[in-house]
């Protein structure tokens, strides 16, 4: 594997090709492990526990607070969501102005490296569980910014993405659809990006530090 070259950021061949290794962080308490996809390692939880976990997930899915953070041009597509035409509040999706009180992070479009540092910090300040919705092609492969020197191409390398909404730009309806998927996943306990992030923190950090050359995030978040 070639080393990442900051002078040739568009060279996708320098990007890591393998997915993150498993188990680098201690895992979550048992009640949530029902849905963490590691059933093989632990014994099947009791039914009651599973029921409780289901209820909990239903609560989580029905009250998704979206952090008010617009990263790219997709942010303009978020605004109509709260208008009377789309009205995302009917799904119990209000906005939340502070990461402390929000559950969903919409990465709305391209993400410059500079913004990435802020995004990482905000993301890490959100309480668990938390989800990332990647909006638009830029978050998938860089989109029209594929050869930009300061824009990341693949969001999933830096933050765990739970739902991709493709398009350039996707309409608000697409985003709502994305939310529906997210809510389904949350209810099923499948949306575990936050857990993945915890478990593979070193890997994510390494990736992050590769693009953020002037790494100045204080490490007191964890």
């Amino acid at each position, binding site marked *: 594997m070639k080393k990442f070259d900051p002078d040739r950021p568009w060279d996708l061949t320098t990007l890591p090709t393998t997915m993150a290794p498993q188990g680098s962080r201690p895992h979550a308490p048992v009640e949530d492990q029902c849905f963490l996809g590691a059933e093989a390692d632990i014994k099947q939880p009791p039914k009651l526990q599973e029921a409780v976990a289901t209820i909990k997930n239903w609560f989580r899915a029905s009250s998704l607070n979206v952090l008010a953070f617009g990263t790219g041009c997709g942010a303009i597509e978020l605004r109509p969501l709260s208008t009377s035409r789309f009205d995302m509040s009917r799904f119990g999706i209000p906005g939340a102005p502070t*990461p*402390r009180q929000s559950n969903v992070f919409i990465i709305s479009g391209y993400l410059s490296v500079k913004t990435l540092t*802020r995004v990482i910090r*905000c993301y890490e300040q959100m309480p668990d569980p938390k989800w990332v919705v990647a909006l638009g092609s830029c978050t998938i492969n860089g989109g029209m910014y594929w050869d930009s020197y300061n824009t990341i191409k693949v969001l999933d390398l830096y933050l765990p993405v739970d739902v991709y909404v493709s398009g350039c730009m996707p309409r608000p309806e697409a985003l709502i659809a994305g939310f529906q998927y997210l809510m389904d996943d949350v209810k099923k306990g499948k949306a575990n990006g936050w857990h993945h992030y915890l478990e593979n923190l070193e890997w994510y950090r390494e990736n992050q530090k590769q693009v953020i050359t002037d790494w100045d995030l*204080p490490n007191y*978040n964890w």
Partner: protein
Amino acid sequence: MVIDPILLVAVPLGVAFLLPLFSKLGRTAATAVQGLTIVFTALVAVSWLPGLLDGSLAPANILTGGYDAPIAINLHFGLTEAVLCLLASLTALGSLSYLSVREDEHTIGRSGLLQLLIMTGAFGLIMTRDLFNLFVFLEIASIGTYALVAFGKEETSLEAGFKYMLTGAVASIFLLIGIAFLYKLTGTLNIDDMVGRMPPAATAGLATVILFLLMGMAIELKLLPVNGPALDLYDGADPGVMALLVGTVVNGVLFAFWKIALLVPGTWDTAIMTLGMVTFVGSNLLAVAQDRPRRMLGYSSSAQIGLLVFLVPLVQQGTVALAGAGLLLINHTLAKSGLLWLSGKHAGETRREWTGAFAGSVVMRTALIIFILAITGLPPFPGFWGKWQVLSDLMAGGYGWWALPLLIGSLLEFVYYYGWYRYVRTPATSNVSARPLGGASDLGGVVAFALAALVFGVWLMRDLPVMGDRVLVFLTGVGLVLTLLRRLPRVVLAATATAALGLAAWIMATGGGFDLTTPSGLFHLLIIGAGLLVSIAGLAGSSGTGERFHGLFLIMIASLLLLVSTDNLLLFFVAWEVMTWTSYLVVTSGRLGAKPGQLYMVFSGAAGFLLLGGFMLAIGAGHTTITGLGLLTGSTAAWTWGLLVTGFLGKSAAWGLHIWAPGAYSEAPDLFTPFLSGVISKIPMFGIAMVAFRIAAGNLPAIGAVDLTWLLALIGGLTAFGLTLAAVFQEDAKKLLAYSSVGQVGYIVVGLAILTPLGWTAAMFHVVHHLLFKGLLFLAIAGVIMRTGTRTMYEMGGLIKRMPVSFISVLIGIIALSGVPPLAGFTGKWLLYQALLAKGWLFILVLMMFSSVVAFIYMFRLIHSVFLGQLKPRHRDIKEAPLPLVISEVLMIAGVMALAVFPQLLLNPLNAMMHTQFGLDALRIDGTVLTTMSGHTLNATGMMVLVLVMFVAMFLVLLLVSPPMRKIRQLDIGFAGEVPPPAEEIHFASRFAQPYERAWAPFLKPRATNFWRSVTENTGGVIEAVRKIYSGNGQTYVLYPVLLVVVFALLGLGR
């Protein structure tokens, strides 16, 4: 054994003639001979004093030439003469010690002669009863003065001396005209003989003759328009010379005037009194604008002489006791000579150059303040007793209105003397010379006179009942000792003070001094308790106290104990004034306390004089006790009440009179501020309740439709509101608490003004409670200041992590202050609001409630800016406040909590107190339930239990429902993804209430400050204009006597 007083003149004269020969033997010999002579004269006077005092000796009539008066000149030597001669001798002795080290090669052997002759001239002036002989001795004294003022710097002294000679010569001419014609009219020169032979007042020309005589004396006495040269003299001549003159010539001339006044018909009395009083007030007024301390002393001398001249006709009529005037004179001599000597010990010409003077010398500093206290007429110095005597005699003699200018003039003295002292107290900056001149060997006179003033003043108190009180004498004694030994380690001082207070508390407790059902008992407990807490905190021994704090503190506590327990108006006032000056001295011992201290002293002085005025009205009506005030009726009652209440309000910094408070509170030593706020600001409340409202008991007339008590309540309400609002915008923690303190006093004022048992209960409850929580707040903040070294709140922050006990103290303090249940602040407010509602003063009720809401802003501001928010990196390692402070704080917290849970502990005795005061109960207290007489109930204990139960329940709930919790780092905040800037930048504390400020902007002009500033500026403008009459031109100075003669003559007094 008595010595013939003629030797007072003969011996110094003979020695003076021989002195040129002695000086050939050497400097020491001449000085020794001179000193011995002066000591001899002093002994002569002393030998007569005891006999004359107890009446076993008759005054001596001394003949000369072998014949009795009027054939020959005779001298008279009675008590007055003996005292004056003694003073003259002592001053001469002191001046000798002062001047002899300042001689240069030119003056050796010459100035001693002049000093001796000046003293002799004064003796002659004092003793002679012959009019022309009087003139001769006057000339001896004057010529000696003319010559001796050339001592020292020629540049200024010659100029001053020459101008002085010019007017002196005019005075001689006037006097000679008067004497010659008087001789012609009466055929005799003996004053006593002449008195009986004066032609009828209507005799043509007699008035002109007397006018010339009086104007000659006026020049010699340096009364107002003609005192220009004398001022120049104080300014330009050596202070030692001036001190000599004050003790000898000035007193001699004054007594000469006394003798001449015997010849003046009674129709002149008003003119003389007016001239004297105009001089007193005018000179004091002009002194206020004076920037040069020595010239200021000149104005002051002029003023004091004016006062004594004012008294001369009154004493001769028998209206005023001679003792009163005499005490004033003695006081002035001692203090002014001492001040002059001290003024010569420093090179500063202007007040600014006096900055930090005598910083290294305890003796000189102590002496200076003793002299200033004495000359401004504070107890226990003789001037106080003199002034009291004079004022009471004036009231009793029907001259009450003259007391008004007298008090105003005395207040002006406060302004400039403490203005001067302010500079002395201000720490010196490097470019100002603070080195005393002339070593320590010439301090003899200073020390002796300071001691004399103190001892004499205390000796005058010997018959007062206060001397029998063990606790007071004990505390004062220990206090004096500690004041003098103030260079000991602070911990030792604090420990001694604590021990003394503890002992006093024990004595009082065993003697039943803490009977809470009486106001004095309650205040005794408060004073001693707060004193103990402050003393304990003082054991921390660091910068929280000034070096002379502990000694003065004990004296202050003694005075406070006296104040709250006496029934005598005189003693009350003595205690009041002692409290004033001790607290003033403590305030100025703060690092920057000098300037606010001056303001404090001036306002306290004004308050004191208002009280004095009120007391004098009562005394004029024949009542000398506080209980006697209740017998006043009609307009006297109203005026007395008004004066007393205004005085008390001034001292408690009511709205409009509050401008001194923030500075004094915040710049006072950190550990003293709790006491200042907790106790000293309550003393006026005690005064309003226990002194002023003796009168109000029902016979206070209303002014128009406005009830006086309502007016008082309104002032209280405005105080509470205005100062609370002001506190909101403070950046300085102590200033914030200071405004808050004063605002809280407003609640007490309102409570007292309601004049119902419930209102008074509320007020008294608040007195105790405010002491506890405000003391707690001030102490906690003192600890914070001690640790952080700053008072500006936005420079602190996050200290909860470093100083948890202080945080809890402040938390308890502000909850108690805010009146939020369940702490006792609510109980106090509840009582007050119930009382107000029952009284029907709705708008005052609204004002009080609103102020208590506004108070939330500053309370949160205080605790947030200091303890919450971001901890500054530089405070990362500071420690909790010292243990003694923490102990005091914990004790106070215990007190606050006890009051909160069991308010009946205090309310039961208060109820009993109200029963004795009003004959009515304020409350019904069944177990934990308080019920007002109108049936409203409050269950403070139940409230506390309810809140505690709910709190614990919710605490458990939160514990239960909380997911795993992480204590995160300080800067880990949701900062829009940014890395937060340093803690200093994100601690939102500076201009905390900015939007509020904008909203209130039209109401926030510092009206009171502006008002007082405009008062001072306008007065200053007037003074600037008036003092241009002292143009410095000798010719103009000669013109004034002529002008004065013509004006007086045209006024119909001549011809």
